[in-house]
């Protein structure tokens, strides 16, 4: 029988600007918190999967697997996962698969990213490396630029406008107000979003997730290990899925869909034995406002062309029918790219356990979903978490 994978403990640093802190230190902090939360000793870890995207740009640091393990106080096989902004989502999935295979009972997963030590131009260049270097970067495509291409085509095919997108940003900022781990614990208005300095049409500054520093970690264990050691691990990762697509946006069949997300989601739903209707709360990869729209459509929560208005209608707000990004999402919580997928697991685990600042809004929730994407969703990982005790 395949072992059920429990989230024994989670941790993350506050996300925000700490340009002087190295990625290794931030991951060490997050891992330390996760071990404490789990009641598991670093000596018990049998494998480490660590997500990081731009260490070569920001810290001239490659070969980060063993570095991350050492930072966490672990001596075990350690591998760095680089899958752009989906790096630590993939790391989580690798950990789940490792335990399910029976090859390990305790795996440390997570990631870290140091970004704000770079100038805006250098950070923009580093992020753009998630695109096709020959045919996109050489044409001047930036990360927000690529999502703008998707947004403008979406408007053309399905309607919607900048104001619809602004409501996504406003909602996610609302959710982050009381989250002490979030980079922006402040409300914003639709007017403020619309009046912000332009980054690339149709995006202003508040349509974009920020440059952030931070680390995240989770201690995953087998059900047998949890029982044997009397761990309080009430949340399990019951489904996981991953898919890839062409790296360049122009090579996709559709510019307005994210088929890798739909494929990863279906895999995760089938794996967990749930449907989109069963999901009570979701953390999705809102690196840009349009990204949340595309995500909630690809995940099957809303029909194609319907996702653009749901934030405006309040359906994905904290008191809506499906709260999305109760942590504040990447938009307000922050987006240290290599840490983001792990942070989604950390925040979702706390929401389902009842010890997140916004848990009360979803006190009956038993099924949570995390959606972590790389590039313009050329990589996507979807994980389903459930309360099992």
């Amino acid at each position, binding site marked *: 029988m395949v072992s059920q994978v429990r989230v024994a403990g989670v941790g993350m640093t506050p996300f925000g600007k700490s340009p002087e802190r190295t990625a290794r230190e931030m991951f060490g902090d997050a891992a330390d918190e996760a071990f404490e939360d789990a009641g598991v000793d670093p000596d018990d870890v049998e494998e480490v999967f660590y997500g990081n995207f731009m260490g070569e740009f920001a810290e001239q640091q490659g070969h980060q697997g063993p570095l991350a393990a050492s930072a966490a106080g672990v001596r075990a096989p350690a591998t760095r996962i680089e899958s752009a902004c989906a790096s630590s989502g993939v790391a989580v999935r690798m950990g789940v698969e490792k335990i399910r295979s029976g090859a390990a009972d305790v795996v440390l997963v997570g990631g870290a990213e140091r970004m704000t030590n770079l100038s*805006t*131009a*250098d950070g*923009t*260049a580093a992020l*753009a490396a998630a695109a096709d270097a*020959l*045919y*996109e*970067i*050489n*044409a*001047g*495509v*930036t990360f*927000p*630029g690529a999502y*703008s*291409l*998707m947004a*403008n*085509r979406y408007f*053309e095919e399905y309607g919607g406008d900048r104001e619809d997108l602004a409501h996504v940003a406003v909602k996610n900022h609302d959710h982050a107000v009381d989250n002490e781990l979030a980079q922006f614990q402040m409300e914003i208005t639709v007017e403020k979003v619309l009046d912000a*300095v*332009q*980054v*690339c*049409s*149709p995006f202003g500054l508040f349509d974009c997730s920020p440059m952030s520093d931070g680390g995240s970690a989770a201690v995953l264990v087998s059900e047998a290990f949890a029982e044997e050691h009397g761990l309080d691990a009430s949340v399990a990762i019951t489904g996981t899925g991953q898919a890839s697509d*062409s790296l*360049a*946006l*122009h*090579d996709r069949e559709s*510019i307005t869909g994210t088929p890798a997300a739909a494929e990863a989601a279906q895999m995760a739903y089938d794996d967990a034995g749930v449907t989109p209707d069963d999901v009570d709360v979701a953390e999705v990869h809102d690196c840009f406002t349009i990204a949340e729209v595309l995500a909630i459509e690809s995940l099957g929560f809303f029909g194609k062309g319907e996702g653009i208005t749901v934030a405006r209608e309040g359906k994905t707000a904290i008191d809506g029918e499906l709260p999305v990004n109760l942590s504040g999402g990447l938009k307000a919580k922050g987006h240290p790219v290599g840490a983001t997928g792990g942070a989604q697991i950390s925040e979702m685990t706390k929401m389902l356990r009842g010890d997140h600042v916004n848990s009360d809004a979803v006190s009956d929730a038993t099924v949570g979903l995390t959606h972590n994407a790389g590039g313009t969703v050329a990589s996507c990982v979807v994980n389903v978490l459930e309360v099992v005790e």
Partner: protein
Amino acid sequence: MSDDDGVRDAGYDDFLDAIEDGDPFFLQSPSGNGWLPPQIRDPETGEGGLEEQPLPDTGEILTMTTVYVSGPTFVDDTPYVVAIAEFGPVRMTGQVRGVDPDDVGIGQAVEIGVDRTETTGERVIVFDPI
């Protein structure tokens, strides 16, 4: 983009050379899908046997954006317009230059060309409205 020491990117630089020579091409798989070089197999079907075909003379802009904040290699080019255009079975990304962005839009017919960036002087694929 060639590296600083002048080393070419095979496939990509060949494609730009062909545009400059007035003889642009794309790679077509037996299923009819179009791709840009270098490409050995069709990513959708897995087929080999891709063959060079002449690029249609006219393309259509599918989407575009004006970029105000760029990386270091385009800082002197901002603001600039990036677009995805479809030329028959193949799509590609390029810049729309020398025109007011308000004067072009989705559905605009374009021809392909090659220009040089302001910032680095590197070659860039451009779409000229017709």
